[in-house]
């Protein structure tokens, strides 16, 4: 499969009369975009904003991030989810780079929603602090989950995915500034030069632990709780086959943007033919019962072995009980003779002294650590808040709280906040961006 990503670099965004892209400036007709969003009558109110790096803007509760993309051949950018089922990872896809569509709740947040700051001390905690963002702030009639800590956020997330494709429509007939090509020959038909190199699989563990549907990561629109590990082509991940779920504690989350741009996959691609033979992706998931975790590990190790993989990289989307899936797969791979490297984040507690992963094994001797869910962060107030800051304290966000004997509530009267890194939107960047690590003090 050959994927050509045609890139258009967005320098700035403005509202204007027409949806257009020229010389790096993306212009959006706000009313037209909002009218499109409101075609889903579950949306009761919607506003569109621009948030640039350096702006004095805080956003909370943030639910999803999507890179605006469009297919010149008319295929949906998210086949099987927001459009007809079709093969992803092949052909030409256009992308608006250096920007994202962010989905923010007008009021209601939950465990799976997070915070983004566009300037100041808080800016560095998320990738989106560095991007030009088109921010959809909206509310819906999904009253059934308004007060629930776990939310499907279905109307809002779909609005974001649709909006991303809608906005990218303005470059459909243009010539990209540059093209990235992603191509791998069929696994067993590679040149002898490539065959000489150690072969590697990338094992992904997206979050899928909710047993009720509507919350989990989707693959071509299918709920990933209902699958056992399988083989996927890395291009599928880069080209819209995976939709981020609405469940995981948010600093551990891989947003749809993260899948579309997965740095770990791109890094393995860059090494392909040089230091490794990148076979492809083993798509696993995260399960809630021990037997399911063990079954997934069994499948992952068997597939790696059957493919003849010399090495594997395992990446986990979560902390806490998912560490058992992570360590389980890692150990199963090592036991099958596959040299493995893990990528994850840690949860060492506010005092930094708790065990970093809930389960450990001395066979897991090569781990890249991306951040600490438990790190306490205090930030000053920001001039503008998109969404509702109170959600951080009130709605059970993974890194916020209503009250604490020592620290008080997460949101103070003056708009300053104290929170755990746990609520920074996709903050631990385990998909590969993280320039954080963990050190002993």
């Amino acid at each position, binding site marked *: 499969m050959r994927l050509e990503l045609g890139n258009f670099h967005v320098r700035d965004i403005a509202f204007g009369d027409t949806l257009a892209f020229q010389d790096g400036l993306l212009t959006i007709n706000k009313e037209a975009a909002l009218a499109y969003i409101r075609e889903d009558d579950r949306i009761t109110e919607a506003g569109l904003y621009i948030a640039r790096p350096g702006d004095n803007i805080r956003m909370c509760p943030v639910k999803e991030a999507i890179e605006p993309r469009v297919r010149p051949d008319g295929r949906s950018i998210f086949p099987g989810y927001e459009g007809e089922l079709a093969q992803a990872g092949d052909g030409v896809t256009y992308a608006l780079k250096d920007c994202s569509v962010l989905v923010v709740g007008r009021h209601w947040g939950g*465990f799976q929603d997070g915070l983004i700051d566009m300037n100041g001390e808080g800016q*560095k905690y998320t990738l989106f602090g560095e991007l030009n963002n088109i921010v959809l702030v909206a509310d819906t009639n999904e009253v059934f989950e308004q007060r629930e800590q*776990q939310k499907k956020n279905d109307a809002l997330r779909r609005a974001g995915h649709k909006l991303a494709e809608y906005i990218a429509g303005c470059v459909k007939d243009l010539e990209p500034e540059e093209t990235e090509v992603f191509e791998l020959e069929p696994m067993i038909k590679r040149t002898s030069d490539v065959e000489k190199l150690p072969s*590697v699989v990338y094992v992904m563990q997206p979050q899928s632990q*909710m*047993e009720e549907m509507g919350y989990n990561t989707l693959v071509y629109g299918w709920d990933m709780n209902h699958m056992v590990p399988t083989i996927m082509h890395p291009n599928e991940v880069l080209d819209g086959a995976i939709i981020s779920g609405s469940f995981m*504690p948010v600093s551990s989350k891989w947003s749809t943007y993260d899948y579309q741009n997965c*740095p*770990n996959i791109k*890094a*393995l691609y*860059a*090494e392909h033919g040089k*230091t490794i033979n990148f076979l492809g992706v083993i798509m696993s998931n995260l399960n809630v019962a021990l037997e399911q975790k063990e079954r997934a590990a069994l499948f992952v190790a068997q597939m790696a072995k059957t493919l003849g993989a010399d*090495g594997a*990289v395992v990446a986990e989307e979560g902390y*806490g009980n998912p560490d058992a899936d992570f360590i389980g797969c890692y150990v199963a791979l090592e036991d099958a003779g596959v*040299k493995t490297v893990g*990528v994850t984040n*840690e949860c*060492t*507690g506010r*005092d*930094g*002294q708790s*065990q*970093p*992963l809930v389960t*450990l*094994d*001395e066979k897991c*001797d*090569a*781990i*890249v650590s*991306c951040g*600490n*869910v*438990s*790190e306490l962060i205090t930030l000053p107030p920001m001039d503008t808040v998109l969404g509702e800051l109170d959600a951080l304290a009130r709605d*059970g966000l*993974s890194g916020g*709280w*209503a009250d*604490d*004997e020592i620290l008080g509530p997460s949101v103070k009267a003056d708009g300053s906040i104290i929170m*755990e*890194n*746990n609520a920074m939107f996709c903050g631990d*960047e*385990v998909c*590969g961006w*993280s*320039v*954080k*690590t*963990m*050190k*002993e*003090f």
Partner: protein
Amino acid sequence: MKKAILYVNQFFGQIGGEDKADFAPEIRDGQVGPAIEFAKGLDAEITHTIICGDNYIGSNTDEAVAAILDMLKDKEMDLFIAGPAFQAGRYGVACGTICKAVKESRDIPVVTSMNNENPGVEMFKKDMYILKGGNIASRMRKDVKVMTALCNKLLNGEEVGCADDEGYFGRGIRRQVWLKEPVPASQRMVDMLVKKLNGEPFETELPIPELDRVEIAPAVKDLKKARIALVTTGGIVPVDNPDRIQSASATRWGRYNIETADGLKGGEYKTIHAGFDPGAADADPNVITPVDALKVLLKEGVYGSLHPYFYSTVGTGTTQAEAQRMANEMVPYLQEDNVDAVIMVST
């Protein structure tokens, strides 16, 4: 100018060698022995030097510590330093002991140094900054320099870097840091992978720590007479969560009366534990806290009696330290009521 006091043993205090290891502690005005070396770079005046024989403090620890704390009582002190102790085991343990005591009584920064092989490291590394020192006294200059650098940061209120950067033994605290060279995780992953595949040395970012074990409590002698208590980290609470237990990173717990209940009812109890689907537990809390089964098993005479409360908190994100504290707060209630054994249900 800030003020510091140094502790050394009989040898470095120029009293004598092994023959003087029983030297009782004394405090000298000004700088003795290594203090002179420290004074070269320290941002504090070393006002006094305490000298104590290694055997004396080893065999009469409580008296030695009490005597030294007494000597320090009326002294202005912003920093307390001990050693460096190199590989001398009794000296290293002495430095750790006195530093810990001073830290606890005076709440000031304490710094010492010793070699990796020194037993004092394992004993005290979690309680203070122990700089990684050489194994022989000829390393004095180097060790003092490294200690001084850290001491100055503490004196000047500067941020202390991680153990590797500053040269101290890790104190078991792990925190996130931004890399000085911002190499992304994807690149670090590839580098580590290629090295591991080629059998080359690499460094993991998450060293697997050693695990800590507890002695097995003896089994109950006669289950039919035993009093059992139920505890859970599954966050089962009355629907109004009266104790306002947090859904993650909990610091609070509650105890709820089950004396007359035949089981827990959905609508009266629920789970507040974030991180899993609450549907099943909200509908039937017994799936986490099996009060119904315990009541039936009680009637059948499988065990003697049931403690009238169950104890509840939330496990996700909760620190080990908080969990320990909460457990220690629950224990007296169990002891008071002559509970014999406990069932803990986790999620």
